[in-house]
């Protein structure tokens, strides 16, 4: 395996953006390229993650290239997934020896459409989508099963929300943040029981950019090198009835392949849009109660779809780069009820 290091990371998140995708993306690209120390034309490969269903505009992902620097022509690819999967493709590309560096970007505007309906299109088109179950309802089914199986309580979920919102206060990129009281949150009505508003993600519009490179380039960067020590992604069946919704076997397998348990984990950045999903993923990753999860506030506070998975990896990178921990695990999720999971282990030198 070739060592691959992260050179830079930049993000933009806002509750509702009036700028178009190109206008959101452009300054974020500039920021990340500048911080990488590489000239734009010296970055060998460009890979993006986004979905045109979010903004309802065909080929929005092609238009976004206007803001990324595609002239003279570049080697470029796109995944209809969170940017974390574009990172995976770029990492593989570096492993093949075909390229030495890559710029990964993702963007998502959750505000133009009815997100609950848009996400229903990820479900089985023959037997489920026609019922138009909204995403929060599907998550509610999973949460109910999980509480039954694990013996956890709605109070445990509220405490995750309180902790995440408090941690988000230190994150200038977080959209929802503040001091809340669990008892008070529990007196609020249900949204889709057993979930209340505080258990469901705050959606956002934004973009994310990361630059990675092989070891020689990463070492020249000057900053403390942060290496991708393991990265793997796995998929569970999409049909809601055929798997145990209270577990995430795909995350567990990916964690094994990425060697999460090979050494001590200082903290974790987990893309768990709903509070109960953090507990499911903690189990799948084998994280003890002592491991700090989502010091950024996580995707519960800022769910910029198609970016928030890559944001977890980027937030973990920045924390390690600044010396706040040596080894971390980041996880990105996609689909309903944690159907697909990508696990990435980062290590500072």
């Amino acid at each position, binding site marked *: 395996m070739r060592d691959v290091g992260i050179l830079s990371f930049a993000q933009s998140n806002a509750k509702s953006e009036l700028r*178009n995708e190109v206008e959101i993306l*452009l300054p974020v690209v500039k920021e990340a390229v500048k911080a990488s120390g590489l000239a734009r034309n010296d970055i060998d490969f460009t890979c993006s993650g986004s979905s045109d269903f979010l903004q309802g505009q065909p080929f929005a992902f092609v238009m976004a290239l*206007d803001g990324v620097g595609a002239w003279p022509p570049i080697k470029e690819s796109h995944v209809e997934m969170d940017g974390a999967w574009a990172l995976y493709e770029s990492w593989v590309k570096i492993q093949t020896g075909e390229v030495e560096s890559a710029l990964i970007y993702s963007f998502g505007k959750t505000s133009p459409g009815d997100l609950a309906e848009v996400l229903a299109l990820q479900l089985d088109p023959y037997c489920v989508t026609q019922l138009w179950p909204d995403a929060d309802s599907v998550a509610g089914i999973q949460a109910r099963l999980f509480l039954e199986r694990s013996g956890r309580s709605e109070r445990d979920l509220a405490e995750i929300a309180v902790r995440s919102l408090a941690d988000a206060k230190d994150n200038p990129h977080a959209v929802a943040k503040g001091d809340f009281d669990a008892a008070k949150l529990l007196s609020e009505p249900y949204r889709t029981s057993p979930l209340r508003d505080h258990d469901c993600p705050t959606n956002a519009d934004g973009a994310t950019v990361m630059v990675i490179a092989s070891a020689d380039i990463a070492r020249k960067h000057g900053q403390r090198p942060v290496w991708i020590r393991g990265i793997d992604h796995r998929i569970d069946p999409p049909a809601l009835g055929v798997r145990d919704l209270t577990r995430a076997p795909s995350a567990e397998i990916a964690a094994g392949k990425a060697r999460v348990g090979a050494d001590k984990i200082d903290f974790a950045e987990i893309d768990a849009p709903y509070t109960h999903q953090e507990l499911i993923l903690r189990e799948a990753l084998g994280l003890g109660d002592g491991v700090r999860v989502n010091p950024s506030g996580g995707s519960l506070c800022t769910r910029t779809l198609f970016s928030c998975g890559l944001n977890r990896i980027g937030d973990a990178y920045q924390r390690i780069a600044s010396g706040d921990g040596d080894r971390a695990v980041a996880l990105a999720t996609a689909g309903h009820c944690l159907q697909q999971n990508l696990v990435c282990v980062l290590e500072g030198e």
Partner: protein
Amino acid sequence: MADAEPIKAIVTPVRLEYDFTAGKAATLFLRGLARKKIIGARSGPGQPVLVPPRGADPRTSELAAEAVEVKDTGTVVTYSIIRVPSENIKFELPYACVNVLLDGAAIGFFHVLQNCPLEDVRIGMRVRAKWVADDKLTTSVSSIEYFEPTGEPDVPYEKLRENT
């Protein structure tokens, strides 16, 4: 079950509604149309004027936020004769759609040509926008009904090479 007629198709209608946010650059353009003006944008003085503007200059990936008005006259840089119907287009078949290099712009602008026999449509032909009546102007490209010939002499192909 063995005798049951297999289901070969089902209909599952999908309808999604979106609130489109035009962004800063397209907002300039759309507001211009409601004032009978075609507004492009560029990244700075001397840089190409892009119409319609989408936010960035794709060659440099610099923000293209400076509004520049272009003329509603221009030159046909390419065209196609349309012989198939389209639900949203009211023009009688066949008709020509044209890519017009508006005077002052650096890239072609897509629209429909009318008031011109199809055998006369050609690259280099000078055309002008036909606007809808003033009380019908809106923040939409349909404020321009179509383009039509001006009758001016053609622009030689050599001068259009960059844009064809």
